[in-house]
């Protein structure tokens, strides 16, 4: 009986372990700050072709991010023909919906988008913990009950992956690919708790 209790306890403890930190080696924190460079240049128009898969429904659009002030970003999605789908403004932790298509005007959609965009454009992060796992150095930050893990390639110094979790579960994974200086030419945002995948490809003829 006691063995069974211990087994159950062990089992429940293991299942509580966050997948992100599995096999990671903790390391002392030296730099207490990390800056995400990808949407930090106010002179740059960040224009991407977006492909969005949500619960088996697919749609595309043009995804636009512009830094319009300190810790202040404008994020817009339009159809290829130019009609606006949504228009968000993020400043610090607050947000404003300038426009959203009536059909998408639902709290759950707005909150999911807001969380994703805050994750994507958040520039300055306070590092609480540091891990190592070749080829990455991983910085962990905490915001309320959410944890963010920044995977930086040791050899290139570039941010390649960003994982947002609750204390127990991975929620959102962002992969940054084809990185050219401070610009990620391809970005993939995947959700673990909902069937939503966003793929962004940089449009560089503008």
């Amino acid at each position: 009986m006691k063995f069974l209790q211990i087994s159950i306890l062990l089992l429940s403890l293991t299942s509580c372990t966050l997948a992100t930190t599995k096999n990671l080696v903790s390391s002392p924190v030296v730099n207490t700050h990390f800056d995400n460079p990808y949407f930090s240049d106010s002179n740059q128009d960040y224009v991407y072709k977006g492909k969005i898969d949500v619960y088996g429904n697919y749609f595309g659009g043009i995804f636009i991010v512009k830094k319009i002030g300190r810790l202040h970003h404008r994020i817009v999605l339009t159809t290829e023909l130019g009609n606006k789908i949504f228009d968000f403004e993020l400043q610090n932790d607050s947000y404003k919906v300038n426009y959203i298509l009536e059909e998408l005007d639902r709290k759950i959609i707005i909150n999911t988008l807001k969380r994703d965009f805050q994750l994507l454009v958040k520039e300055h992060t306070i590092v609480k913990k540091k891990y190592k796992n070749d080829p990455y150095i991983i910085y962990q930050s905490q915001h309320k009950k959410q944890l963010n893990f920044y995977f930086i390639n040791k050899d290139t110094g570039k941010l390649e992956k960003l994982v947002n979790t609750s204390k127990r579960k991975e929620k959102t994974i962002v992969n940054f690919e084809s990185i050219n200086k401070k610009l990620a030419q391809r970005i993939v945002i995947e959700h673990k708790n909902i069937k939503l995948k966003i793929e962004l490809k940089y449009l560089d003829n503008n």
Partner: protein
Amino acid sequence: MNKLMLYIYIIFFTLGVNAQQAQMSQTEINNFKKKIKAVAENTKTILSDFTQYKHLEFLSNDIKTSGKMAFKAPNLVKWEYTNPYKYSVIFKEDQLLINDDGKKSDVKIGGSKMFKKLNQLIVNSVSGNMFDNNEFDISYYKTAGFYRVLFTSKDKNLSKYIKQFILHFSKKELTVIEVKMVEPSNDYTQIIFKNRKENIVLKDEVFTN
């Protein structure tokens, strides 16, 4: 050219354009509408290159995309973007047939009245056949090079999406050379047509994805 000169040049140029734009008289309007209607009736197909500029006030540059547009009377339209990405959309009755770089999807637009209306307006604007529409206040201007017609939304629901359609018609052929859709925020989409060919044979296969 230094900056000051450039500003002066721009100001004069803008003033010049405005000065050249004059309101059309009622007789001119009636004449113009009659001619446009005749052109639209005789246009069975259109194939044209286009360049699209998406203007958002907070961006440093407009977003430029380009491709080909095909129209077949009465209501088949295909927009095919080739640069900087491959994407095509066919307006077919109650459906949008989309091919996004190989990924195909059909969107039924019957459910969304507003979307349907917007699409209908886009289809109509290609041929210039928008004058019998009660949802707009229409005003007519002429310049040295083209006619400029402003369609301002009267309908409360429509004006949430589109404030104004602005169509430019060539003076010679009376065909649409530019479409501009202005949103309530004054952001806009501008489409400029070039190399327009009319009444060439366009098989139905052109309008499949």
